[in-house]
């Protein structure tokens, strides 16, 4: 019992547990209150109850200076849960009901990381400063106090292991009838034993005459003398000598960290042609906005480029970006051409680049394969993503997303294709896109 428990239960509502309540969760609209601030709609669960039809009920408003004229529109009601199932065509609640809390993009990115289990590690590009890090780098000279003795011991031991070999066995070999030191050496080499010709010659010379011819052949030695590997030998004898060498000496020194500024440029491309109706437009906004916030939260310096296109493409400001509607046809490559041009200002060597495009997958014939795909391959970026928004399932000639997927494959590192058919798909799409980028960094 207690609030912590209640909070836990609330988080689970509509998710792992109590899915019966999922329909009654409202997330409201995404909003942005000011630069560097994000309004996150608070999750609100309202149990069903008898209430008035909001449209039929009407309401009371308050004018700023005087009252507005009769007949003047007063804004659109906000969508409500159950609105989009289309079954009842239930009217929505009037505006102003949604509650928000504000957070900055960094917090947002953290929450999203946690929520989706993402681990996107932004790449630094431009070097802005160098500074001393912890003493983790090593050099070959330095004051004795910084000598890394542990490392030296390990290196010595490694060397010893590498150099040691089964001396007893080689000595026995030298006792084979009519064998020459050369033959012993060749056999040892064949066995990859780290032994020198000089050592063998010395050992050969040391063999007392009465023992020569003890074995008839090398095979006989192999059959009768047990070989002992180095580890066994060290265990038996202990380490009497670790060969410390000058060349193993290492002195610790502080690491120089290149503080790289993490720059990102995000290109948002949106199809604004006639077929992109309100619902599709809204889905694009619902998907793009959190992506932008996320990247803004992840990088030190985020720039955004907005491109609207029908058969032609043009750059726009963010304010207009989600609102534009045009009449014309669709040629997606126009947007990529413009993107390519605009990205010249953000050289790949200095900038992380994300190119997000969204539309309903309709494109003029062959444009995808002949122009868009080559352009996507040509424009270097951390990630290219295409978000298909089709609230009413698929249209026949809407194949752009499909073609991309066919060409790049579903597990491409730097190309993500996501489908958003309803609000419920938004989170999945964001995950799909951002986790694709995550893999690039592995």
């Amino acid at each position, binding site marked *: 019992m207690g609030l912590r428990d209640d909070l836990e239960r609330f988080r*689970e509502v509509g998710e792992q547990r109590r899915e019966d309540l999922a329909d009654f969760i409202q997330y409201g609209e995404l909003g942005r209150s000011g630069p560097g601030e994000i309004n996150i709609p608070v999750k609100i669960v309202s149990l069903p109850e008898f209430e*008035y039809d909001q449209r039929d*009920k009407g309401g009371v408003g308050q*004018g700023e200076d005087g009252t507005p004229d*009769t007949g003047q529109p007063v804004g659109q009601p906000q969508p409500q849960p159950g609105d989009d199932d289309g079954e009842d065509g239930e009217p929505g609640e009037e505006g102003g009901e949604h509650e928000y809390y504000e957070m900055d993009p960094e917090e947002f990115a953290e929450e999203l990381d946690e929520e989706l289990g993402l681990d996107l590690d932004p790449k630094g590009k431009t070097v802005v400063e160098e500074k001393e890090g912890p003493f983790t780098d090593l050099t070959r000279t330095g004051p004795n106090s910084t000598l890394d003795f542990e490392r030296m011991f390990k290196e010595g031991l490694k060397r010893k292991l590498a150099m040691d070999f089964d001396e007893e066995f080689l000595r026995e070999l030298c006792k084979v009838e009519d064998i020459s030191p050369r033959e012993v050496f060749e056999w040892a080499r064949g066995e990859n034993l780290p032994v020198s010709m000089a050592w063998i010659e010395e050992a050969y010379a040391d063999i007392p005459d009465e023992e020569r011819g003890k074995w008839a052949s090398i095979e006989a030695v192999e059959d009768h003398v047990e070989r002992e590997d180095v580890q066994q030998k060290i265990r038996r004898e202990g380490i009497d000598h670790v060969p410390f060498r000058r060349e193993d000496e290492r002195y610790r020194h502080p690491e120089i960290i290149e503080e790289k500024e993490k720059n990102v440029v995000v290109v948002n491309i949106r199809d604004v042609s006639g077929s992109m109706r309100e619902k599709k437009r809204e889905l694009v906004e619902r998907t793009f906005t959190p992506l932008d916030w996320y990247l803004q939260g992840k990088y030190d310096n985020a720039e955004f480029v907005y491109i609207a296109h029908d058969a032609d493409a043009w750059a726009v400001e963010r304010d207009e970006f989600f609102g534009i509607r045009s009449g014309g046809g669709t040629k997606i490559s126009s947007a990529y051409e413009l993107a390519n041009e605009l990205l010249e200002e953000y050289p790949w060597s200095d900038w992380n680049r994300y190119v997000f495009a969204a539309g309903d997958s309709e494109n003029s014939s062959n444009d995808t394969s002949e122009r868009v795909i080559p352009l996507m391959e040509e424009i270097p970026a951390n990630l290219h993503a295409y978000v298909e928004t089709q609230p009413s399932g698929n249209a026949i000639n809407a194949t752009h997303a499909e073609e991309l997927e066919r060409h790049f494959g579903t597990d491409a590192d730097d190309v993500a294709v996501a489908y958003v058919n309803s609000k419920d798909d938004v989170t999945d799409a964001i995950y799909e896109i951002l986790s694709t980028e995550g893999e690039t960094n592995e």
Partner: protein
Amino acid sequence: MSKRNSNADRFRKQAIAADLEEPVTEARNLAQKLGLEPYPVKYWIIDYDEMNELIAYGGFQSRYPHWRWGMQYDKQQKQGQYGGGKAFEIVNNDNPAHAFLQESNTVADQKAVITHVEAHSDFFANNEWFGMFTRGQSDEGQVNAAAMLERHARAIDEYMSDPEIDRADVEKWIDHCLSLEDNIDQHQIFTRRLDVDGPAGAELDEDLAEKLDELELSDEIKGEVFNEEWIEKLEDEDITANFPEQPQKDVLAFVREHGKQYDEETGRGVEMTEWQRDILDMMRAEAYYFAAQKMTKVMNEGWAAYWESTMMTDETFAGDDEFLNYADHMAKVLASGGLNPYSLGMELWEYVENTTNRREVLERLLRVEGISWRNLTDVVDFDEVLETLEPPTALATITPDTLDDLTAVRNEWVDHESLERARAGEIDVEAYPWKVLTYEGLARRHYSLVKRQNRGFLARVNQNELERIGRYLFDDARYSSVDEALADVDFTAGWDRLFDVRESHNDVTFLDEFLTQEFITENNYFTYEHSQATGQFHVTSDAAEDVKKKLLLQFTNFGKPTIAVYDGNYNNANELLLGHQYNGVMLNLGQAKETLKRIFELWGRPVNLLTIVKEVDDHDIEVAKRRNREPEPKEQGKLIRYDGQTVTTEDVPWDEVEHLAADDIDYDTKPDEWLA
């Protein structure tokens, strides 16, 4: 949740508490002097986290386990964290009331909170809608809210921990009950059990049939033992007996008494378990307990704001140094949107006070020889009248040096006992000048009509009102001069009226009676309606009566449609029939269907709802669009039914729903020529 009972923590709070002891005592004294009669209040010093927790729990320390407290806590925390929303004051309706002061508040804030809380506590204790909850109890006047909620918390927690009971089942059951939270009869005195007779034979009949089956008697024997006529007679009685006799608005109580739980396995309604009934009882009791607060939000907040302002500003309960701080806070609270309950309520209370005082003055003036409602505005100089009504200097400014002047004013204004003590230096007149005055004296000192912001109020009286007062006045030549008339003015009239109103009104009656044209126009209120033709909301009117109509819709019955039980044995199959008492505004059908599904769980058998909807056919919309007109909707009776599997909706003839339609109310504000 986080009880950090470290000593340091406790000492810090104790220190704050010690500083506030005097303000608490004196605020109570002042409140009582001003005529308030609050429940005793226990004050607690708490930190920010604790405040968030209390707010999440609706002002109490312990509530039953439920996700919605988590939701509120989440919101509260995030608003605080990201929005900088500052929790201020929380007080609960209980006897004694408990109020919570956040330790980080400034002293000025604390004083404001304390004065505010005293007024709330007075409202809890004296508003009769709050009495609805207490009056039916054996120990009348005792709220026992904290104890009740704590009891509920423990009981439900026990049910949830019971290995025999699935925790999720308990949660869902609570949710089902909460869907009907507002479907109570908040205008009735709360009683634990509903006094509705079940159908005399229904239960018996069903049981009987079941028992007969169980006995596995052959039909022959059955026929011999229980003669058929007797069984038929029982059935006949059911059909004719109306159950409930009158439509029953307390749906929660009805399902509590006659509902069953739906058993998935057998596919039929079976008796509720004890825990289910118990939880229904608890949820219903809590719904009644909180109903009064929902019904009086504007009044109650306005009341608290009014007296807070009187004590803090007029009676300078905040020290001079604290005052700026306070004024700043007050301005922020009142400025947040014109329709917030604080400012709306406070303005209405001030309006009640001013109109009552004005009426009192006008009644006196109209009794002056030669003055009638026709000539009053011509012959009376309102500036001079206001001059006369100014409180005497001895009352307006009270310092240790001016105490002697009080002997010259009316006896009834002065608290002579206190005056003696003040003279003896036992009372700090500098800090608490009000101590030497009586209720009458304070009313004189703070007489509303001469306050700077109200100085135009008297002169703004219109001819209609003058006529209304003048026409029914007897004894209309009692005074020979204006001065003589004004000497008789009852200066407590305004406050006396406030106390009467706070006793008997709720938000609906309060707004209905006191929301004025002036207020609506000044605040630029307007109404809007939805147009089928354009698919948008459009402004419809800024006329006061229209705005009021719409506002009242938002306050009547918690702003919810009225639903009542019309038949507990519908279709003669123990189905439930609910009726929506249609006032011209249709139901949100999607929500209604979902709610029916919840009620099914509490009834255990099919549930039905009769309602009236407005339908416009597409052709009419098209035509209307072309002509820039609004299509005329057709009202159609509907029966919505949920049988545990599917929701069905069917049209029913008008005569089946006619009894549900109210023809004397109209909330529609669309003008005839609207979109043209």
